[in-house]
């Protein structure tokens, strides 16, 4: 399999490297590098709740199989593409974290998501390109899927121009931040040995990442849910000419396995080359600029089958009816697509997009719903702690910890819990009439060591609130039952013989907020 080569330095980058060589010393360069990597981690982290919020506003399978309507096809596509980007943002946060850990730093993720919404991205230039309504602010809301929200996504992923300069503050594009990081790594003050403070075996390992899953996949149209998937080396014959394809045949994969620099997506870092590879993967996936800077390609991989984040979002926008009407300030490269058929209008979107509020906070929800929202935020924060904890876990146990911690919390708790919340219509207050949505707040769970106990306390309060909800609002009885189920899934679930099937308690890996290497 071919992979993207490491990007050559531009003239602007070489100029900066020369300046860094003249003006810094080792300790200063290293400190700047570690500080800027923490900024990069916070930028990547900031994108995740923004993308997930919009993702969960999309109801992907109101109809399925042969029953799907055009609005369902678009919703499934939009969901698959947004999730495919969110997955890669998690990869990017992991890559930046691995670089920082290699340098002897500790990624600070817990309580470091945006403090409120709409939010600027950390250290971003508050003024950006002109949006669909002429606005130039770079303030990203928690918003449901739609044309304006896609513009905000484009602002996040805006490609850097060929003449872009590296920026460590007040930056215009994420690529320019990483460009500055590349220059710091490349300067003479930073050496391969600097990347051996945090051992590679404790970094987040390549085997934990997969580019696609059943949530990044979407279908191209109607399909026959009863047709078996083809066995290797054979296809299923069609008995009828009008038969729809199987789900396997209708599946479209939003991400590609070759979309990375180096040998694999989630590299560990032991030297400068590894760090360059990690940054190339981040930048190429986001903006699609493969080496050398040839900004005419919307794709980010050698096989030219995976669009960059920027182009994925632009492609979705191009299918909405607003696209021909508004003149956003888009870069010339890659060339924006023309309107994509079939056009999706407001009425079609209304069928598949949950009426989420804009920038909700728990305090604005009815009292009865606040503990349910608090637990959602608690799980979100606990996931960030689990991510930090991965670096404490004995390497031989990392795969299992990742599965039982990260995967279970994301897929089996947070994902289902948010979908449960989506069943609840808000009956009073600021967001009356809207659908209950996650608020992704920096809700404190206390010290990392005590965080599982704090999450348990939040869970108990959510269960009590769910029981009260079922009493007061019988229409929400099913949702309330699901709240109880998923809280127990997070905190107390066991299999029939009694073995734990819930989230792991991170307490053995922390002394207060100080990491304890090796855990128990």
């Amino acid at each position, binding site marked *: 399999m071919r992979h993207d080569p490491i990007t050559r330095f531009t003239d602007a980058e070489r100029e900066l490297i020369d300046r860094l060589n003249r003006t810094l010393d080792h300790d200063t360069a290293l400190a700047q590098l570690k500080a800027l990597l923490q900024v990069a981690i916070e930028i990547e982290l900031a994108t995740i709740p923004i993308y997930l919020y919009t993702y969960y506003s999309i109801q*992907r399978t109101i109809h399925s199989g042969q029953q799907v309507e055009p609005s369902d096809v678009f919703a499934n596509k939009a969901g698959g593409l947004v999730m495919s980007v969110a997955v890669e943002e998690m990869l990017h946060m992991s890559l930046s974290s691995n670089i920082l850990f290699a340098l002897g730093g500790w990624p600070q993720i817990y309580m470091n998501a945006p403090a409120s919404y709409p939010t600027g991205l950390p250290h971003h230039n508050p003024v950006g390109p002109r949006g669909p309504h002429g606005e130039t602010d770079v303030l990203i809301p928690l918003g449901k899927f739609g044309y304006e929200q896609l513009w905000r996504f484009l602002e996040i992923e805006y490609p850097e121009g060929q003449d872009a300069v590296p920026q460590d503050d007040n930056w215009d594009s994420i690529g320019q931040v990483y460009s500055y990081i590349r220059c710091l790594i490349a300067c003479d003050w930073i050496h391969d040995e600097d990347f051996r403070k945090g051992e590679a075996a404790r970094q987040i390992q390549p085997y934990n990442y997969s580019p696609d899953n059943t949530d*990044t996949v979407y279908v191209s149209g109607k399909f026959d849910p009863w047709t078996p998937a*083809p*066995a290797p080396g054979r296809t299923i014959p069609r008995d009828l000419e009008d038969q729809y394809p199987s*789900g396997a045949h209708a*599946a479209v994969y939003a991400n590609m396995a070759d979309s990375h620099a180096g040998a694999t997506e989630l590299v560990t870092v032991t030297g400068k080359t590894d760090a360059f590879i990690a940054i190339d993967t981040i930048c190429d996936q986001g903006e699609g600029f493969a080496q050398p800077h040839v900004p005419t390609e919307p794709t980010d991989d050698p096989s030219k089958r995976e669009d960059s984040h920027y182009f994925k979002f632009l492609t979705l926008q191009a299918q909405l009816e607003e696209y021909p009407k508004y003149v956003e300030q888009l870069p010339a490269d890659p060339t924006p697509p023309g309107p994509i058929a079939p056009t999706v209008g407001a009425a079609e979107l209304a069928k598949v997009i949950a009426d989420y509020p804009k920038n909700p906070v728990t305090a604005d929800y009815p009292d009865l719903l606040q503990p349910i929202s608090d637990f959602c935020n608690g799980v979100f924060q606990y996931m960030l702690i689990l991510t930090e904890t991965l670096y404490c876990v004995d390497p031989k146990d990392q795969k299992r910890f990742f*599965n039982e911690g990260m995967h279970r919390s994301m897929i089996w708790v947070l994902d289902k819990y948010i979908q449960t919340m989506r069943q609840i219509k808000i009956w009073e207050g600021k967001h009356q009439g809207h659908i209950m949505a996650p608020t992704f707040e920096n809700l404190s769970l206390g010290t990392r060591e005590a965080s599982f106990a704090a999450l348990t306390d939040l869970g108990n309060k959510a269960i009590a609130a769910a029981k009260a909800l079922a009493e007061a609002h019988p229409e929400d009885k099913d949702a309330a039952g699901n709240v109880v189920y998923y809280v127990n899934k997070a905190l107390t679930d066991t*299999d029939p013989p009694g073995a734990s099937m819930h989230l792991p308690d991170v307490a053995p890996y922390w002394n207060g907020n100080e990491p304890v290497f090796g855990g128990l």
Partner: protein
Amino acid sequence: MTTLNVREYLKQQPETGPGEPVPEPYPFAGAPPFPTTIGTQPDGMPLHACMGLNSCKGSDRFGLEGHPDPVTGQNVQNECAGQGYCSTAVQHTCHVENSCRNQGGCGLYGTAEEFENPGHNDCRSLGSCATPINAERFSTNGSNQGKSVWARARKVFEDVVWPETRAELLAKQAKGELADGCLLPEKLGPAPKEFHDLGPSYLWISDDNAHRNNMTACGSSGTSGAGGCS
């Protein structure tokens, strides 16, 4: 709803339900109905993730009680290793939720390596995705991407899992720790003929789409082929 089965209920709705229309006539009328509970298992047999991945006669979802023979109506057990009807592992819905070695399904979430080894995992929490493995499910990663998970699981079982398991069981028999009655042939028998080499259809698992909760699988794209938990 109280007097109609789900399929009849769905047929009265203005919008057809998931899976509708179903194939007519029902193609698995000759197979015993999908058992919603797992029968008594022979002593010492490892649990497994799906149809055709069993290690011994009587080791399948019907267990020692057997399944009704469509001709005689009498209960019979599956004949041998590789010929069983469906999983005996604790049923689960998703990646990481398996209880033990070789009990993971596959195809929905997981890495390329995991997707290339369905039904072949080291231990608890290291398996991939829901069991049973319905015939419609395809891998979303790795070299098996877009292809049948069940067919891959059967291939891995034939090539890797069964030789390992057979050697372990033969050793146990030699020590007297396992009854001699269980034949452990080198070559596996075929999976039940109603499902050819495709694995258990969700149409069968769901009793002709009437009981979609007989098995669920996670994921939001609607392509798992099974009743969704999301």
